[in-house]
């Protein structure tokens, strides 16, 4: 496929969802089926175009493929901003992931959102989101990336708050938006640092400038960390992780699309794209942020009872993994994990959606509105009632736990190999692989806890259980498709070795060298990963099976009592259950002082500044103008202006006495005048 064709395809992929958004937001309600066909039609078109691009990428099989097209957006002489597309293999794979998951979400939602009061608006927002996400993926410069970045934030806000009648949903959407803004401020600072130093936003030109050393040292580190702050916000990394669990207030298909597979991965995508400009110091910062988030979120996920909350924390943890991979230099592994994670995590979310849907219907039939349909303690034994949901979720769980034969194993393995090789070069950073492996252990544990609590054991609520049914076809289809895509073979073709990530993916995505002078080359990193590969594999299989075994022992065999252990580790259990009191502490130490400060400032502004200073100015001006008014009117007007007139009038009326009307008087005056002239003349 030629480059121009690709650009046309990309334009289609970008704008079809936007067209759907515009149609649905204006006339959606009047269309048949509230217009969901428009949304689904355009998204399938997008998917077909993405598949065509993907196919051409596979056929040409060129790891260095790269095509760029741009146009001038703002031209002010010396200052010029160009926007455009960058299409390389990463872009094409991301486009496919986004349109695939988006298509699945559209299909899944036809049943899940059936009868919703804002059905057409929901589809409109999905279109807006797909448009903005594709925009992020296609951008070839930081400005359009930033624009679409914010658009994604907006659509996330709109979709989380879809059921805004619920206070919790309205609050969650605000929280998500504001928390993202915090990260975006860092992003903007980084953007401006780069622009001030290099005068360009284009990726390639920025990397060139970095390679030439036009921006280096601490400044570059800060620019990199600033840009990474955007990823911290969007990818929900510690300490801005607080919004993602609350974002689960949105509809479950939205959670699958945005808060598991694509939008939150935008931060990882950003880090992958900008990898060449991160200095070693910035990368270390990134690695620790990611590693810590991975283990930190995993420890929270263990104790959560809400099925979506478990998945939310699991997502944070997995995103931490990807970020960790970028930090250790194995950014291709991070991107690989992004893709595999998108498939199995979306599958898990659809599975949870399917379960919640079933629970909801059962509870609805029982007219029970108090029981929480998302609480796993109310489930159990669903395996026989929802076999497809069970098996697909099981596959996805095996994948996320890092069990061989599944995609998660390959990508997780690559990341862990990256951390191990990093630690072997820098022994002082031994914590990074420790974070990675322990997070893997805990992940396997809590994911199987989710499966066991939901699908195994005795039903907790028998009357609800009897009314549970498998979900309808449009909801089951995405589950089957995505769980099949969690099998290793789709990533290793044309090879069939389930233990090695060697395949089309790794062949097409080649790591690029960092542009920062003095950084280890991509070859060195790959070499190190290759060396630690075997050790990693053994260790990761070990921790995964240990985690699964533990989970089995606790939740199936009951040989270890979860209750007893939670009592024994009371302090820790409570910390984890309450998410380390992050929300409470943020509220206590951040929001409340901030609110108080805002109140003080508003007091100063309104009651002091406005009242005394601004209004004082008004009073002074009023007084001053009354004084000048008096001076002007009473003084100037009355005396000088009117006085002049009056004196003229007086002079005139006294002079008019001369005009007697007697002809001879005038003659006499004339005579006198002549005499006076003669007298003066004679002197």
């Amino acid at each position, binding site marked *: 496929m030629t480059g121009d064709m690709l650009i046309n395809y990309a334009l289609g992929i970008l704008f079809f969802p936007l067209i759907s958004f515009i149609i649905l937001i204006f006339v959606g309600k009047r269309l048949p089926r509230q217009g969901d066909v428009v949304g689904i039609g355009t998204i399938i078109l997008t998917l077909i175009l993405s598949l065509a691009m993907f196919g051409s990428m596979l056929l040409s099989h060129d790891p260095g493929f790269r095509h760029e097209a741009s146009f001038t957006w703002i031209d002010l002489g010396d200052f010029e901003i160009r926007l455009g597309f960058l299409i390389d293999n990463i872009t094409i794979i991301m486009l496919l992931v986004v349109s695939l998951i988006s298509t699945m979400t559209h299909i899944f939602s036809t049943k899940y959102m059936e009868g919703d009061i804002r059905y057409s608006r929901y589809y409109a927002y999905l279109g807006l989101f797909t448009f903005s996400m594709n925009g992020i993926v296609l951008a070839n410069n930081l400005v359009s990336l930033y624009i679409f970045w914010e658009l994604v934030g907006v659509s996330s806000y709109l979709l989380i708050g879809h059921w805004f009648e619920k206070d919790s949903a309205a609050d969650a959407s605000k929280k998500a938006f504001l928390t993202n803004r915090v990260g975006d401020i860092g992003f903007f600072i980084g953007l401006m640092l780069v622009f001030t130093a290099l005068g360009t936003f284009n990726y390639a030109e920025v990397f060139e400038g970095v390679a030439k050393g036009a921006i280096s040292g601490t400044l570059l580190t800060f620019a990199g960390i600033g840009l990474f702050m955007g990823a911290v916000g969007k990818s929900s990394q510690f300490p801005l992780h607080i919004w993602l669990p609350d974002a689960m207030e949105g509809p479950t298909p939205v959670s699958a699309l945005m808060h598991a597979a694509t939008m939150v991965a935008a931060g990882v995508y950003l880090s992958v794209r900008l990898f060449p400009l991160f200095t070693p110091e910035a990368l270390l910062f990134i690695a620790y942020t990611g590693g810590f988030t991975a283990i930190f979120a995993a420890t929270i996920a263990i104790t959560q009872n809400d099925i979506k909350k478990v998945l939310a924390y699991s997502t944070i943890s997995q995103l931490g993994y990807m970020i960790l991979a970028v930090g250790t230099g194995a950014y291709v592994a991070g991107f690989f994990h992004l893709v595999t994670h998108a498939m199995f995590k979306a599958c898990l979310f659809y599975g949870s959606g399917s379960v919640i849907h079933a629970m909801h219907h059962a509870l609805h039939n029982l007219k029970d509105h108090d029981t929480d349909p998302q609480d796993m303690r109310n489930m159990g034994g669903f395996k026989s009632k929802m076999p497809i949901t069970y098996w697909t979720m099981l596959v996805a769980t095996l994948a996320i736990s890092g069990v061989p034969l599944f995609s998660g194993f390959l990508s997780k393995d690559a990341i862990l190999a990256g951390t191990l090789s990093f630690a072997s070069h820098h022994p002082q950073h031994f914590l990074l692989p420790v974070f990675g492996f322990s997070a893997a252990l805990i992940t396997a544990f809590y994911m199987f806890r989710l499966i066991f609590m939901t699908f195994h054991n005795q039903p907790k609520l028998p009357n609800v259980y009897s009314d549970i049914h498998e979900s309808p076809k449009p909801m089951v289809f995405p589950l089957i498709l995505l769980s099949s895509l969690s099998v290793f073979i789709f990533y290793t073709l044309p090879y069939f070795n389930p233990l090695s990530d060697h395949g089309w993916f790794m062949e097409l995505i080649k790591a690029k060298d960092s542009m920062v002078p003095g950084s280890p080359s991509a070859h060195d990193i790959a070499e190190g990963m290759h060396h630690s590969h075997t050790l990693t594999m053994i260790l990761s299989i070990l921790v995964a099976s240990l985690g699964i075994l533990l989970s089995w022992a606790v939740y199936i065999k009951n040989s270890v009592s979860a209750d007893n252990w939670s009592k024994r580790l009371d302090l820790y259990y409570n910390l984890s259950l309450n998410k380390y009191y992050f929300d409470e502490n943020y509220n206590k130490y951040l929001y409340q002082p901030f609110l108080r400060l805002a109140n003080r400032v508003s007091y100063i502004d309104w009651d002091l500044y406005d009242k005394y200073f601004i209004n004082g100015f008004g009073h002074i001006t009023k007084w001053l103008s009354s004084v000048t008014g008096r001076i002007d009117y009473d003084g100037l007007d009355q005396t000088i202006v009117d006085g002049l007139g009056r004196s003229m009038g007086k002079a005139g009326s006294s002079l008019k006495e001369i005009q007697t009307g007697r002809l001879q008087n005038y003659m006499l005056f004339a*005579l006198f005048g002549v005499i006076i002239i003669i007298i003066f003349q004679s002197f």
Partner: protein
Amino acid sequence: MDNLQTYLYISAILFSLGLYGVITRRNGIAVLMGVELILNSANINFVAFARFGGMNFSGQVFALFVIIMAAAEAAVALAIIINVFNNLDTVNIDDARELKL
């Protein structure tokens, strides 16, 4: 007696008499007669200066012009006085002050 000065004296006396008449007489026709005297005193001056200044009859010619102008002036002025008499039943110019505010 045949010198300029004599003529100028006569002219000055005539002018003064005319001016006196114009200023003191209340009768409009008498005022007009005063004006005629003033004009003729000027004529005497013209002719005298022409005669003694050697100015080739231009004074005499000017005097003729003045006579013509005086005739015209008298016609206009008499017409005005007749109109004044028609309107006010008097020729006393002190009574003709209609334009006085």
